[in-house]
């Protein structure tokens, strides 16, 4: 899968390129707006990662110009501006997702893969399986080794997100967005507390270790024990 990264800061560019290459994606780069727009309109990309502030042509203007040509490639905006209204501006200009710098690569990866999958039509899944875990989406039942886990609605959503990204590190921000429809940094351990409750239910069935805490990054659901 081919990604175009338009980013003028060399350190950030290198960090992102290295990350995607390690994950087996191919990625091209542009260091300014004009070059970015040129590449975006001539090449075939599945995802554009766009810095908000670029020399030459501002990220939002580039995006508007791209959308004006009818190009519907998913766009993820990276920005040092964290205000809620900046996010709204970015999404209104045609962005599909918005991420604030500084960020962890694991979170960028999750968001990028989600946007790239959107293009492919997948049959709607009715159940999720990760190792000994099984989630029936229609009946909302979860079993671990055939034993039922009784989950509250938000715990169900948390686990669903973890299962959809099994073996990946998901940040607290991603989990927060997946479960609650509010955009803000709660500045408190609210996600940790909900995860802890979920993990206790796993522990009751003897498998608390399935949900791993990754310090400084977030959580990861292990595929097996």
């Amino acid at each position, binding site marked *: 899968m081919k990604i175009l990264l338009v980013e003028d800061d060399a350190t950030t560019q290198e960090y992102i390129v290295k990350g995607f290459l390690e994950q087996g994606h191919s990625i091209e780069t542009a260091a300014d707006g004009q070059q970015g727009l040129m590449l975006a309109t001539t090449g075939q990309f599945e995802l554009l990662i766009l810095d908000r502030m670029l020399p030459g042509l501002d990220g939002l203007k580039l995006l508007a110009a791209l959308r004006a040509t009818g190009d519907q490639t998913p766009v993820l905006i990276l920005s040092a501006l964290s205000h809620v209204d900046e996010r709204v501006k970015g999404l209104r200009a045609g962005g599909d997702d918005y991420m604030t710098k500084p960020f962890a690569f694991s979170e960028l990866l999750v968001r990028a893969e989600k946007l790239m999958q959107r293009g492919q039509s997948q049959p709607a899944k009715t159940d999720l399986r990760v190792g000994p875990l099984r989630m029936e989406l229609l009946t909302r039942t979860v079993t671990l080794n055939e034993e039922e886990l009784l989950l509250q609605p938000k715990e169900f959503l948390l686990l669903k997100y973890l299962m959809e990204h099994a073996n990946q590190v998901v940040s607290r921000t991603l989990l927060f967005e997946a479960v609650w429809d*509010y955009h803000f940094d*709660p500045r408190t351990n609210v996600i940790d507390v909900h995860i802890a409750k979920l993990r206790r239910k796993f522990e009751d069935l003897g498998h608390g270790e399935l949900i791993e805490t990754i310090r400084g990054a977030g959580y990861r659901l292990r595929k097996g024990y």
Partner: protein
Amino acid sequence: MLIIGTLLLVLYRQLVTEQQAQVRQHLLSEAQRYQQLSLTVDRRAFAAQIRASDSRTALIAWQGGVEMVGSLTLMPENMPLLPNTREFPIFTGGPEKLHILTGGVVMTRYGPVLIATRTDHLAALIDKFVSAALTALALTIVLALVVGYLFSKGLLSRLVHYNRLSERIEKGYYNTRLPVSGKQDEFDLLAAQFNRVLDTLEHNLHAVRGVTDNIAHDMRTPLSHLRIGLEQLPYQPPERLAERCGELTDELDHCLATFNAMLSLTRIEEGQQALELQPVSLHDLCADLREMAEALAEERQQTLTLETNEDYVVSGDKHLLFQALFNLVDNAIKYAGEGASICIRQRGGSIEISDNGPGIPEAAREKVFERLVRLDPSRHEQGSGLGLSMVKAILSRHHATINLTDNQPGLKVILNFPRA
């Protein structure tokens, strides 16, 4: 001055016109008398009547044959027919030899008769009036100049004083205030307003100083942890390395979050952040709030209850409003202590968040809204110290009010949203 001049001029004109009208009226009635007389009496009796006429009422002259009959010895030429009149001079033998008369001619059965009256006293009156008026005008001018000079000297000295004081302020003496006299004039109003601006500025300056000190304090701890951590990183055993890096990242994220919160707060307070307005149900907000915060309360063996009554929909930014409400509940959970009961009560446009913890002393209730102010001086609880400032800024952008009251025991926070 101009007004006084104009008034005097008008008065003068009126006086002259009035006098002229009187003279004309007088002459006309005399003319009528002689016209009718000429119709009823014979020529000799007419001459006799003219001769007998009182020169104080009017001067009559008639060319009766060769000689002039009446007060005048000669008929001036080009006298107009009454009611038109004209002025003409005559000589008399008296002490005041020259007199000014005003008169006209009336045609009678016995020929033209001149009817005139002395108007030089009128001219004198008008002269007197004019000189009196000029004197008055001159006096007014002088008086106005003197008063104006004294007045502007007073104003100027106040302005000079103000200017000197503002130079002091420019130099950094922000406690300088302009003097306000008891006169309550425009200058006092200006000075009072200026002083209020200075009060606000001085307060803000102090606040900024306080904030800077607090930032230094808040950032020093995590930054020094980071420094120590980085310094020791090369000596960590390889298996500890990943975890240690994670811990340091957490510390760094805390610093970044504080910076972000400060920036957002400024933007919301100054109204730079555009609100994403949409209808927001207070009932739904409170229900989500409880769902999110309940796990936090459980962790501290606290109970979190929700009471709602008649939903209320406000036009607002749901993300910001939820952030504000969550912050208040989160504070209650943090500070009410283990085992406390916390209640979210929504009734119409009013939301109360109450706890039975230690509460906030009344004297400190205003202070907690200031940036980076934390009542616990050791800053034990993790947090940016910006929460309540943010809450207040968000609520004021939504025209809602917040009050902290005593829950006896504990704290009760009351929010009131305006009627839509």
